């Protein structure tokens, strides 16, 4: 499993993103955080992240909307939706717009790391 992935966490829940970010870095990943969709898009635009973990509720924008924009501009960039509010519609819309996965908080780091790694693996072209 690749442990040197570059992961971008977009989530306005500061406690959560900062802790998760630190723990991912401790695992050998590279991780950055963004508290808004706009901030996240800027980082993605720089070409840095390999996987995005996106909260569905953001202060500046609806998360699914944000997902849509990411997938329109960078279709091969895997995005995992992570939310504290279980909502089937959001989950299905998310998958329709190309999210790799939809998960619910609380999520233990182990599971999240697996989901990130699988999303990254699946985003590669087959046979490579």
């Amino acid at each position, binding site marked *: 499993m690749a442990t040197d992935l570059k992961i971008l966490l977009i989530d306005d829940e500061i406690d*959560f993103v900062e802790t998760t970010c630190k723990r991912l870095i401790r695992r050998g990943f590279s991780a950055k955080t963004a508290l808004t969709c706009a901030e996240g898009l800027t980082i993605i635009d720089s070409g840095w992240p390999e996987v995005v973990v996106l909260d569905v509720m953001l202060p500046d924008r609806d998360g699914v909307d944000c997902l849509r924009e990411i997938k329109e501009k960078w279709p091969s960039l895997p995005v995992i939706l992570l939310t504290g509010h*279980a909502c*089937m519609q959001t989950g299905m819309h998310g*998958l329709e717009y190309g999210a790799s996965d939809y*998960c619910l*908080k*609380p999520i233990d780091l182990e599971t999240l790391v*697996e989901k990130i790694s699988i999303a990254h693996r699946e985003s590669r072209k*087959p046979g490579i």
Partner: protein
Amino acid sequence: MFPPAHSGLSRRRQTSTSDHDMSFLFDRLTSLFRSKPRLKPAELQAAFRGHYKEFRALLTANNNALELMAELEQALTAGHSFGMAFVRGNCTALSVNIYKMIQHLTRLADGRYAELDHPFRTITRELEQLIAIRSLSKEGPVILSMDEIDVTKVDQVGEKMANLGEVRNRVNLRTPDGFVITAAAARQFAAANDLQVEINRRLKGLDIDNLEELYTVSAGIQGLISNAPLPGELEEAILARHQQLAADTENELLVALRSSALGEDSINVSFAGQYRTQLNVSREFIAQAYKEIVAGKYKSQAIVYRQQRGYRNLDVHMCVGCLRMVEGDISGVLYSRAPDDPRSPFVIIQAAPGLASTVVDGSGATDQFRVSRTSPHPILHKQFAEDENASITGFRKMLTDAQAAELAAVGVRLEEHFGTPQDIEWSIDHSGLLYILQSRPLGRSISEESPVNGAYNPPVTDLPEPLLAGGACASRGVGYGPAFKVRSSLDLLRFPKGAVLVIETPYPEWASLLNRAAAVVSETGQMAAHLATVAREFGVPAIFGMKQAREILTNDTLITVDATAGKVYAGKVEPLLALAAPKPNLMVGSPVYKLLIKALTLITPLNLTDPTSPYFRPDSCKTLHDLTRFCHEKAVVEMFNFGERYGFDDKAAKQLVVDAPSQWWVIDLDDGFTPDFDPESRYIDLGHIVSLPMLAIWQGMTAFPWGGPPPVSLGGFGSIIFQSTRNPNLDPAVRSAMAAKNYFLISKNYCNLSVRLGYHFALVEANLGEFLTENYVSFQFKGGAADENRRLLRIRLISDILNEFGFRVEQKVDAMTARIEKKPGSFLLERLKILGYLLIHTRQIDMVMADEGMAAEYRRKIMADLHTLLISTTEG
């Protein structure tokens, strides 16, 4: 793609009833007539890899979905607590995973099966409505006077105040004047500040076993509520009503604010002591005190309590009674019957000087009376508290005989009115007037827990000398665990699961530990304390009034607590523990429990059991389980058919050669063969197979030679003949050539083996991915030649063995499925060896299963072989 062996197919299709696991073979027939796109080898390889990727993702989603379903089902029986967030979260995750399966299947099948969308939408729409957060009505008056309240107003004022209104207006007993700030007011308050979204967000991720997190989240939410401003109109309404109440008061009006949550105090569910009461509140602090009581809905023990009992936070609304303070001269608690005997001919009164709260919160020493329920209510028994102050001052307020009789009469009246024994709080003021402050059903009585064993002292002899004796039973039962003394909130955080809670005083705050405690030993306190009530409800044994407990018991010492007898023993006293009743499943009957049962009707029933049935199609899917079954089955079929659809030549299925060509065929889905294998070859040997799960199964199949069919007694043989006449598939002469073939579909990490061996069918499927999320082994087993009873006995034997090796086994009639998921590869490979062994060695033993001796002998041999197999292969 396959050797031409279609001759027997049509007949088999008509006659087949049970062998659905091979059904995908038949789907092949339909695809024969489809046009075949001709692709170049490189394109073909890429297309195949693409399909395989979809297939693998579908298997992972299937794995997640089945695990989530099992979790939801287990929640009903495990007796653990779960909240609405669990149900909503799991249902949502489940739906999303099934949606993923449909997406992957559609892509795998080049756009077919899109009609699955319809049943999926229908099922999930219904499920979503069920688990949706209902919008709350904010209508109705925000304030109701105590004079206009009775039980019919329960939805507006909560059960505590509705009962008090009943006492006041229907039983016509004296209660304090005042009013209730209703549920509508609480909703308006929450809505004005948009509190619920934020509260839900904070509760969503909460693990109630993580006490530190629990306290942080609880304090955060309470702060949020306490600091939010009251809507202006609401505050004005409260103050205006307060002024009316003050009009006929000489001194400054002081009120008691009492919580009255909707959902609390109903029978068997007392949120005892979970919420706040604020006494002696003056006008300027009413608004703040009101908010704090509303915030008390999220006290840590209330959150835990609700979660354990299955109450949705949204279903609990905090109403607040605002009652004129009673200047209590003497106050206490009255039980209309003894809590441990619903037929007792006496009431129990606990009394202490001052306000009733000292009795209820367990902090004050109380006098106890047993008073006859029959007029003129003589006192049968008195027990006075040891009160150091009293002996110094020589003066202590005592309940008079007349007052005790008055109370007993009230207890009888209230029990008659409410139709069930009551737990009553009362206060007598300076002028001698009796006020009823609260009346609610007497909680789960101690004797209800074990109606059979009514004796207080268990009939156990030869017990060791107790470490401690002489305590009073606050909650019956026997518990065992390490002692752990709790003095402060800091100790709370370190309290280990399964420990015995040792405390000085049974404060209500300790209630949040009861879901982790094996038992409770307190130096002080009595049956009326809230902690005792909660302990009884949770079935946690508790001894109160156990002097020197903290001195004699040291942390981490293992002790057995016999609460029924009021004794504590060193170490584990098995004969006593054997008496311990199982814990009640507290969730049964709660709103969340009922809702989950309803939700599960849309989730777990499996209607699509037979893939050969004409009804095995999308519009027959009635539950989420049906959808997973359909998607999985069709995905395997699609992978099987891939070569054919894309014009592969006939050589995809290779005949396995072990010494000589065998009855086993292998199809590579991706990377299951070594790169140097010649794809033109019709045969393959084991050396060219790199599929880890297949090799493990094979190892299990071949580790021991099969001893051949068991010697069959006449009865067993007769039963085969009988079966054969009914089931043409059992007759070798009728069996089609196709049915005789056993296929391994493999990749390096995946294997799907469908087997027909002897007279039974089996399907083994395994995936050993890079990640635990992807890992599973599943096993289906069905059929046999002997009569049903013998087949069932064999299935039970296999189930037992698989259970021992950690499989989750489900059995329906003579079909069995077993699954393990999300375990490391090495663990699963061992399980595959076991399955491989069982496939071969349980052949035809159904015939001898009726013979107990032989069945036991087979079981012994199987376990011994498996042991050898696992040891030898681990060492090798």
